């Protein structure tokens, strides 16, 4: 190993994001530390969030005078050779990627909400400040609540949790409600398959979310906030709890935030494995300690929310974007995007994809650019057959639709949805009848049970699809499935039952052959064995 005693403290970055850890980041970090210790080289090992280039994880970066040089994906076995080749100086090695900020995949993006994720140590409050943290909150605290709301409205920021409702309008409703007790609730239930941006933001930049929720509290007059995180995300829970403790110590939360009259405190609540608790009223019931049964609207949560009090319910990405809007101004944010989809969206590429991860870019980018240019097609190397966009309630789109621009209205017009920005890619071995069946099965398993079209319709849906595939009275059963989808769409109280027909109908519309039951069993068995 090259030794440079004159050069103390080389800074090395290894992610602590749970996806990076899932493929060995902890072991890589430990191996690097051990090797450095035994060679008596002083290194400073910083555990960051993930840059979101997940196919390169574990991605190791080293600080050099030419910027942060990346190596990846690194296994512990690679570490000795990497150190011998001059990792600490950013030298050549087959795994060397060059300056990370200049990698085209990252450089082409527009990292706004995710600007700090993968860059800083998520729990280093000073690092947060050095990278522009609290600028948005400080700006907001100098403004009146109404002006903060106006700024958020003018930015065009819409809810990132799926429905795309303008954040400013929701906030104004809560601001206009009388009363002392109001709540800010952050929806961190992120149950959709193919979505992981909320998790990565919480694990990679938790102070940002705290800052966003505090700005919301000032804007609407709330003194208490709840962060509802799903139990499937233990690392996010731990990181958020640690960050909240640090924020309290620093006076960023608690009584008189940053020395101003604002009192605001924040609590983490952990879900218990129920997809429907991502639906906002169900989440409120769960926060109240009840079964996660969906409430009928009206009243909307903005007026009668948690414990019947006016409540802001926003997604992690929505609240995580607010500090940027305040720091850089509504206009700067508003200038990104297309039509009524303003700003950036954090797209998540998952499933069978060569280069999966986080792509934050302005709305208006096409699916094709995301899947082919960023994603590099399938990981299996086989042709892309379909992509499901917007989670388990989103449509399956064929490649002929991949030129659709990512835009809430354009997607809705095409019978699809952007949702939370998750894109799940499948290759040509997928059995679309099995995927349609799974959509119904998932709805049956996760329905809150309040209304019949969803609770019973989904069970019937599974049976009918089975009959169609088995060739039993195919035409009658296809008509029955269509009826059932219509009934679920029209008759369900919430989007769980109301949108489940979307994946089912899109599968039928674009991949009808798969429902004929004649697909070669050996090629199309992969998904749902």
């Amino acid at each position, binding site marked *: 190993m090259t030794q440079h005693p004159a050069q103390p403290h080389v800074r090395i970055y290894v992610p602590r994001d749970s996806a990076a850890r899932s493929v060995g980041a902890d072991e890589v970090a430990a191996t690097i530390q051990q090797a450095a210790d035994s060679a008596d080289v002083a290194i400073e090992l910083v555990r960051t969030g993930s840059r979101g280039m997940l196919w390169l994880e574990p991605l190791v970066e080293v600080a050099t005078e030419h910027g942060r040089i990346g190596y990846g994906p690194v296994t512990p076995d690679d570490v000795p050779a990497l150190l011998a080749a001059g990792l600490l100086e950013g030298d050549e090695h087959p795994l060397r990627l060059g300056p990370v900020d200049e990698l085209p995949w990252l450089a082409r993006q527009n990292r706004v909400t995710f600007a700090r994720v993968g860059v800083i140590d998520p729990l280093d409050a000073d690092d947060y400040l050095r990278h522009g943290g609290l600028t948005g909150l400080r700006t907001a605290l100098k403004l009146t609540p109404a002006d903060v709301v106006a700024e958020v409205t003018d930015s065009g920021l819409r809810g990132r949790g799926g429905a795309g409702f303008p954040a400013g309008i929701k906030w104004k409703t809560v601001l206009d409600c009388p009363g002392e007790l109001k709540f800010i609730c952050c929806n961190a239930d992120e149950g959709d*398959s193919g979505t992981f941006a909320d998790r990565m933001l919480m694990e990679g930049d938790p102070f940002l979310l705290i800052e966003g929720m505090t700005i919301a509290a000032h804007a609407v007059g709330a003194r208490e906030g709840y962060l509802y995180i799903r139990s499937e995300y233990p690392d996010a829970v731990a990181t958020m709890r640690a960050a909240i403790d640090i924020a309290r110590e620093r006076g960023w939360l608690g009584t008189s935030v940053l020395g101003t009259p604002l009192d605001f405190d924040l609590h983490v609540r952990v879900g218990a494995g129920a997809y429907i608790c991502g639906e906002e009223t169900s989440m409120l019931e769960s926060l109240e300690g009840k079964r996660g049964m969906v409430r009928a609207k009206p009243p909307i949560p903005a007026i009668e929310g948690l414990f019947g009090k006016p409540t802001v319910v926003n997604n992690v990405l929505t609240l995580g974007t607010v500090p940027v809007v305040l720091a850089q101004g509504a206009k700067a944010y508003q200038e990104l995007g297309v039509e009524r989809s303003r700003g950036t969206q954090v797209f998540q590429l998952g499933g069978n994809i060569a280069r*999966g991860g986080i792509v934050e870019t302005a709305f208006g980018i096409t699916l094709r650019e995301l899947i082919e240019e960023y994603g590099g097609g399938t990981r299996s190397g086989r042709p892309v057959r379909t992509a499901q966009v917007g989670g388990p309630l989103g449509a399956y789109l064929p490649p002929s639709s991949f030129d659709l621009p990512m835009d809430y209205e354009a997607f809705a017009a095409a019978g699809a949805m952007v949702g939370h920005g998750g894109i799940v890619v499948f290759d040509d071995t997928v059995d679309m009848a099995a995927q349609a069946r799974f959509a119904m099965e998932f709805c049956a398993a996760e329905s809150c049970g309040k209304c019949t079209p969803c609770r019973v319709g989904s069970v019937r849906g599974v049976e009918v699809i089975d009959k169609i595939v088995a060739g039993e009275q195919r035409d009658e059963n296809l008509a029955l499935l269509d009826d059932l989808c219509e009934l679920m769409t029209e008759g369900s109280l919430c989007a769980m039952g109301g949108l489940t027909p979307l994946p089912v109908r899109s599968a039928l519309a674009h991949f009808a052959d798969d429902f004929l039951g004649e697909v070669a069993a050996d090629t199309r068995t992969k998904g749902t064995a």
Partner: protein
Amino acid sequence: MKIRTSDPTVEQVVRKIAAAHREQRGALLPILHAVQAELGHVPKEAVPVLADELNLSRADVHGVVSFYHDFRDEPAGHRTVRICRAEACQAQGAGYLVEYVRQMGLTMGRTAEDGSVTVEQVFCLGNCALGPAVEVDGRLHGRVDTERLGALLHGTDQTRRDGVGATPDESEAPRS
């Protein structure tokens, strides 16, 4: 700590946990999580105690416990292995993992007869770009193949030295 359901201290444990959380708004879920963390499950005897502590009916408490997938009324095995079966993992071959579990003589949602392992399905662990994803006792594993799953089920997975892009040979783990 694992306590038999008939253990007389269940009531004491539950009352203590309830007392520690009582000042929270909507305390039932945090209490149930704490009970399960302490006892490994939510024993049936906990239900009337919680109803009493929180001034709810037994039916209310039971309704909540049974609504959420996380709460179990019997202890799990020595290890809990949760396999993601949601779409992104399906696209990456999660079905093969489920098939493998069957071949091993295990049943999804059940604990092995020798109590060594409980295998469950889960819908999305937020690792959708590195699937198939499997979680073992709260720890996430990515790009799990059947060999790795075998090691995870047997508790013989030493490290993740194989990492991404390993060939099946390299990731072959010793069998117990």
